[in-house]
C-alpha cells in the first residue's frame, strides 16, 4: 500500500514550492475565475423585460391607445418607436431596432364598437427563441385580459391565478445561474492547473527523470492532486462568499454539506486534468484539451438548457459529464435546501468517476513510460 503511493509526500511538498515560487500564475489562477463570476453573474439575466417594440397604429383612437398602454405596462414590452407604414415597421424589425412589432388596423375601434372581432397583428422576431416565446405569451395574455374586460363590464375576472414560485421567489436569474457557474469555473481552473503542471514536467524532462526513480505513478498523481485540490477548494470558498455577499444568493442548505460534497467533484476534475496531461505533449496542447471540456459542460450539463428537454442521445451524454452531477448538487443545496439524503447518489457517481479518471491516468502513464 505504501509502495503504491511512494513519493507522494516529496512530490506534494515540491508542488507547493512551485506554487509559492510563481505568485503570478497563482494570482491569475485565482483571480480569473473570480472576474468571470462577476462578469457572467451580472450579465446573464434570462428574465425578459423591456423588449424594444415598434408600433404601427393605423386606428389612432382612444381604444387603440388603451390597448398599447396595456402592452406597455406589462413591463415586457417597451414601445420604443412608432412607424407610419407597414414597410417601415418591417424594416425596424429587420434592422434589429425592434424585436416586436404591433400593428393596430384602422378599423380596430369600429370593430370593438360593433361587437365584431378586431384583429391586432403582433410580429415577433424569432431569432431568440426564449424572447419570442415570452413575447408571444405576454401578448396573448395582454389581449385576453383586454378582451375579457370588454366582455364583462363590471371588471371582475371569473378566475384569478396566484402563482407562487418556490425556492427562488423573485425568479432572479442570478440565483439560478451563479450556483451552476461555480461548477464551470472550478472545473476550468482545476483541470488547467494540474494538466499544465504535469505537462510542464514532461516538456522539461523532469518527468523522464522521475520515471527512473522509485516514485510510483499514483504517488506522483496524488502528490499533484493534493496541492491543486487545496487551491481549488480555497477558490470555491471565495466564490461562495462572493455569491452570498455580492449576488445576494441565499444558501438554503448546509454550507458544510456543500463543501463536503464538492470534494468528489474536485477529485473528478483533477482526474480529468491528469488524463489530459497524459495525452498532451506540450502545454499548448494541454491548454486546448482543457478548454475543450468547457462547451459540453456548459451546454449539456443542465447549466443553461434543461436536460429533460434534450433528445435522448444528449441526455445520455449529459449523464457522463461530471458537471451535470455537481450542478444539481449546487442547485439542490443552495436553492432548495436539499442535503445528503437527496443528493448522495450524485456524490457517489462523482467519486466513482474521479477514481476511474485517476486510475486511467496512472495506467496511461505506466504504458507511456515503457516506450
Amino acid at each position, binding site marked *: 500500500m505504501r*509502495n503504491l503511493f*511512494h*513519493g507522494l*509526500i*516529496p*512530490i506534494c*511538498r*515540491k508542488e507547493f*514550492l*512551485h506554487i509559492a*515560487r*510563481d505568485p503570478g500564475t497563482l494570482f491569475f489562477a485565482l483571480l480569473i475565475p473570480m472576474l468571470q463570476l462577476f462578469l457572467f453573474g451580472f450579465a446573464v439575466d434570462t428574465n425578459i423585460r423591456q423588449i424594444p417594440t415598434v408600433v404601427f397604429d393605423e386606428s389612432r383612437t382612444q381604444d387603440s391607445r388603451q390597448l398599447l398602454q396595456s402592452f406597455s405596462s406589462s413591463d415586457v414590452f417597451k414601445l420604443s418607436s412608432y412607424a407610419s407604414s407597414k414597410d417601415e415597421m418591417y424594416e425596424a424589425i429587420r434592422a434589429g431596432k425592434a424585436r416586436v412589432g404591433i400593428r393596430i388596423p384602422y378599423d380596430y375601434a369600429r370593430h370593438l364598437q360593433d361587437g365584431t372581432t378586431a384583429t391586432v397583428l403582433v410580429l415577433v422576431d424569432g431569432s431568440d427563441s426564449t424572447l419570442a416565446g415570452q413575447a408571444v405569451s405576454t401578448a396573448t395574455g395582454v389581449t385576453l385580459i383586454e378582451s375579457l374586460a370588454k366582455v364583462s363590464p363590471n371588471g371582475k375576472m371569473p378566475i384569478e391565478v396566484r402563482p407562487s414560485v418556490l425556492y427562488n421567489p423573485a425568479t432572479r436569474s442570478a440565483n439560478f445561474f451563479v450556483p451552476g457557474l461555480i461548477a464551470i469555473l472550478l472545473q476550468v481552473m482545476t483541470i488547467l492547473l494540474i494538466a499544465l503542471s504535469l505537462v510542464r514536467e514532461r516538456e*522539461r*524532462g*523532469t518527468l*523522464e*527523470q*522521475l*520515471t*527512473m*526513480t*522509485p*516514485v510510483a505513478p499514483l504517488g506522483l498523481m496524488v502528490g499533484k492532486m493534493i496541492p491543486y485540490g487545496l487551491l481549488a477548494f480555497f477558490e470555491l470558498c471565495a466564490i461562495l462568499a462572493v455569491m452570498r455577499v455580492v449576488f445576494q444568493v441565499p444558501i438554503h442548505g448546509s454550507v458544510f454539506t456543500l463543501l463536503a460534497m464538492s470534494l468528489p467533484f474536485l477529485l473528478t476534475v483533477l482526474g480529468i486534468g491528469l488524463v489530459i496531461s497524459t495525452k498532451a505533449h506540450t502545454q499548448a496542447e494541454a491548454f486546448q484539451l482543457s478548454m475543450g471540456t468547457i462547451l459540453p459542460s456548459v451546454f449539456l450539463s443542465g447549466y443553461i438548457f434543461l436536460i429533460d428537454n434534450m433528445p435522448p442521445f444528449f441526455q445520455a451524454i449529459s449523464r457522463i459529464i461530471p458537471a451535470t452531477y455537481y450542478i444539481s448538487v449546487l442547485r439542490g443545496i443552495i436553492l432548495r435546501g436539499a442535503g445528503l439524503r437527496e443528493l448522495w447518489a450524485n456524490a457517489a457517481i462523482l467519486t466513482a468517476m474521479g477514481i476511474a479518471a485517476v486510475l486511467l491516468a496512472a495506467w496511461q502513464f505506466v504504458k507511456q*513510460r*515503457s*516506450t
Partner: protein
Amino acid sequence: MTAAITADHLTIRFGSFTAVADVSFEIAKGEVFGFLGPNGSGKTTIIKALCGLITPSEGTGTILGMDIRKDAAEIKRHVGYMSQKFGLYEDLTVAENIDFYSGVYGIKGQQGLQRKEEVLGLTGIEPYMNRRASQLSGGWKQRLALACAIIHSPEVVFLDEPTAGIDPVARRALWDLLFKLSGQGVTFFVTTHYMDEAERCGRVGYIYLSKLVAIGSVSELQRLPQASPPGTVRIQIGSVNPASLLDAVRAFPGVREATIFGRSIHALVDGDCVSALRARWPDASVQIIDASLEDVFVTLTNGIMGASQ
C-alpha cells in the same frame, strides 16, 4: 565477483520495429563504460530496459545480479540516472532540488543530512546552495544533476549524453568526478558522441542500427580486423592545402577512405599503394599512423552499410 551490468541477448521490439537486436555485454563493477552510436540507434532504449522501464521482447539483463525482468522496483533504488535534459526543477534552489530527490529515494533524517553534505562536497556546489537552478551555468547545472542522480548512493549510474552542450572545462571537471566515484566502486554507463570522451573510458561499445557492432578497450577496437582490414594501413598526408588534394586522393587507386584533419588528410589505403602516393605527391609528407577511435567507427559503419547494399 558478479558483473555490475549484463545484457544477455537483449532484444526489444516496438511493433515491427526492432530497436535493440540481440545485444549482449558485461560491465564489471567500478568500470567506466562508454556507449556510442548515432541518434536513434537504440542507446536510450537499452538504458531504459536495464533500468526496468521496458520489458525486453527477448533475452534479459541484470543489474548487480538483479534480473531486469523481475526486480525492476528494487533496481531503481540502486541505479542513478542523468540525462542531457538534467531533470532539474529550474524554479527550485539547489538545496531544494537535492532535498526533493533525497525524499523521492526515501532518505531521511540524519542519514539524509549526511548524504547531502557528501554530494555537496563531492560536486563542489555548496556555495550555490540557495541559488535557483535556473540561475546556474550549464556546467553547474550538470553537477547539480549529478548530485541529484547519486544522492541515494547508487552502485550503478547511467549517464545519457551528460556533456551535450557543455563547455570543455566543465566537461573535463565532470569526467574527473566520474573517475573519482568509479575509484570508490561506482559503475558508470555513459553514452556520448564525443570521441575524446570515449577514449577516456576503460571500455567502449559501439551500437549501429540496433546492433552492438564492437565492444572492447580503445586499443582492442583499434586493432579490430574490420576496422583495419588486413593489407591496409592508415596514413596521414600532410599538405599546405589538403582540401585541394582530397578529391584526387579519394580517386587514387587503392585509397578506401579519406577525410581531412586540420592540415592533413587521414586515409585508409592498401599497403602497397603508399609508395605510389608518395611518388604522386612528392611535396606532401606521407606517414603511417594508428587508427583513431573515430576512424574505427567510421570504417565499421561504412562496412555495415556496404554489406547491406
